[in-house]
């Protein structure tokens, strides 16, 4: 609609209102307002249009009233500016959103590590970002000795910076194949890279473990990561997979201890990020025991079903509003 026909339409509905003074006419005004917004008409133009219609259709309107509208128009100029700025920022945001969408897809394809298919263990994984991009990371490698290594990491911080840091971790790990068998030295190498390349107030916690089927032992080290759980079938008990170690990126020459756990058939290893244990509900944070009991209730299911179920239950507890990136891994032996 050009400005001439817009003006005509405005005159028509305004006069219609003055004649009938009913809700129907006012409803027309609301619809017209929406149309003007669609056409990027600014508030000061609306005032000016109003004055034009008034002075044309009511020739005996006093000058004072008309002049007062000039005053209003002056006030409206800044509203008009704010309105246009808002529009331009909204466009900018749309553009940013679509860029993030592309980056998030890219990250998903990076993150999508294959979960190894092996005869001695059943593995289930779920990893869900709180926002579009995730600061959680997990990675499995099944080497030619049939060993399975697993890494789970949480970059402190969320969103894009965390995601960028995550891709760096991924490429570093890919380039350290000879350290794969030694969890401690893997973390030591990663620590150096993170310390040198990442902003000082950004930290990464990581748990790295390796299962060797030849000796049926699980070797692991942790860099300040949320402790996982070990389920012993013999004792029918969950215990914490305790491991001490500083977070990655704090000081250059951190050493990481290596721990060993004997694994029997029926045992289970649970690894997670703090997005799992720090689910915030109306009553506060959930307890780690609640996560354990959710797993226990579903223990008989295949590993993937267990993690899916735990995720669903915890998501429900938070009214389907994730506040932190969520990663849960279950390995059943």
């Amino acid at each position: 609609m050009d400005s001439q026909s817009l003006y005509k339409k405005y005159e028509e509905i305004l006069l219609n209102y003055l004649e009938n003074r009913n809700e129907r006419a006012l409803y027309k005004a609301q619809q017209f307002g929406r149309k003007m917004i669609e056409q990027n008409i600014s508030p000061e133009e609306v005032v000016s249009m109003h004055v034009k219609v008034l002075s044309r259709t009511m020739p005996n309107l006093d000058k004072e009233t008309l002049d007062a509208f000039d005053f209003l128009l002056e006030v409206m100029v800044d509203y008009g500016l704010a309105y246009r700025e808002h529009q331009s920022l909204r466009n900018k945001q749309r553009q940013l959103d679509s860029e993030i969408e592309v980056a998030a897809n890219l990250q998903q394809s990076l993150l999508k590590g294959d979960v190894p298919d092996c005869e001695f263990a059943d593995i289930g994984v779920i990893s869900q970002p709180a926002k579009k991009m995730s600061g959680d990371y997990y990675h499995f490698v099944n080497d030619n000795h049939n060993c399975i290594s697993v890494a789970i990491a949480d970059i402190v911080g969320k969103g894009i910076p965390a995601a960028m840091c995550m891709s760096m971790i991924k490429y570093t790990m890919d380039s350290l194949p000879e350290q794969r068998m030694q969890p401690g030295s893997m973390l030591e190498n990663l620590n150096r890279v993170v310390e040198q390349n990442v902003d000082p107030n950004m930290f990464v916690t990581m748990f790295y473990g390796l299962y060797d089927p030849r000796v049926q032992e699980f070797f692991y080290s942790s860099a300040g990561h949320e402790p996982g759980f070990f389920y012993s079938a013999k004792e029918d008990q969950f215990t914490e997979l305790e491991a001490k170690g500083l977070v990655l990126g704090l000081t250059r020459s951190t050493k990481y201890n290596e721990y060993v756990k004997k694994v029997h058939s029926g045992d289970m290893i649970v690894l997670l990020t703090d997005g799992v244990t720090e689910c915030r509900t109306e009553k506060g944070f959930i307890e780690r025991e609640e996560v354990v009991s959710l797993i226990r209730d579903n223990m008989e299911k295949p590993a993937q079903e267990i993690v899916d179920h735990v995720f669903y239950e915890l998501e429900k507890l938070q009214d389907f509003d994730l506040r932190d990136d969520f990663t849960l891994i279950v390995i059943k032996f």
Partner: protein
Amino acid sequence: MRTQSCIKIKNEWNIVQARQLGRDLSKQLGFQTVDQARITTAISELARNIYLYANDGFIKVEPINDMGKLGLKVVSSDKGPGIKDVRKAMEDGYTTSGGLGAGLPGVKRLMDEFKIHSQEGVGTEIVAIKWLR
């Protein structure tokens, strides 16, 4: 009537004078009320910038005729500190977020043409034009 077309901006009162200058000339040239208000607001904003940040500058207003196309040209010139990052200053939400007013993007929107030249430690010159519709 020949009005003084250049105002030195030293205090807030000068901002009002600069506005008046723009208002009178835009009226003379036949701009509609909405555009009069827009030109005046742009001048106001430019003058305020001089008053707040430069303390030594002027606003000049003059008619312009580009091969029959009539318009009003505003020049804002100061020997202030200059703008360090012009691109940033031209970004939406940069100056306005602190409630500083319409800012330079606002001035650009109010006018049809907008040119800025700024050098740190030397000063800033802005030329803005509104064409008669």
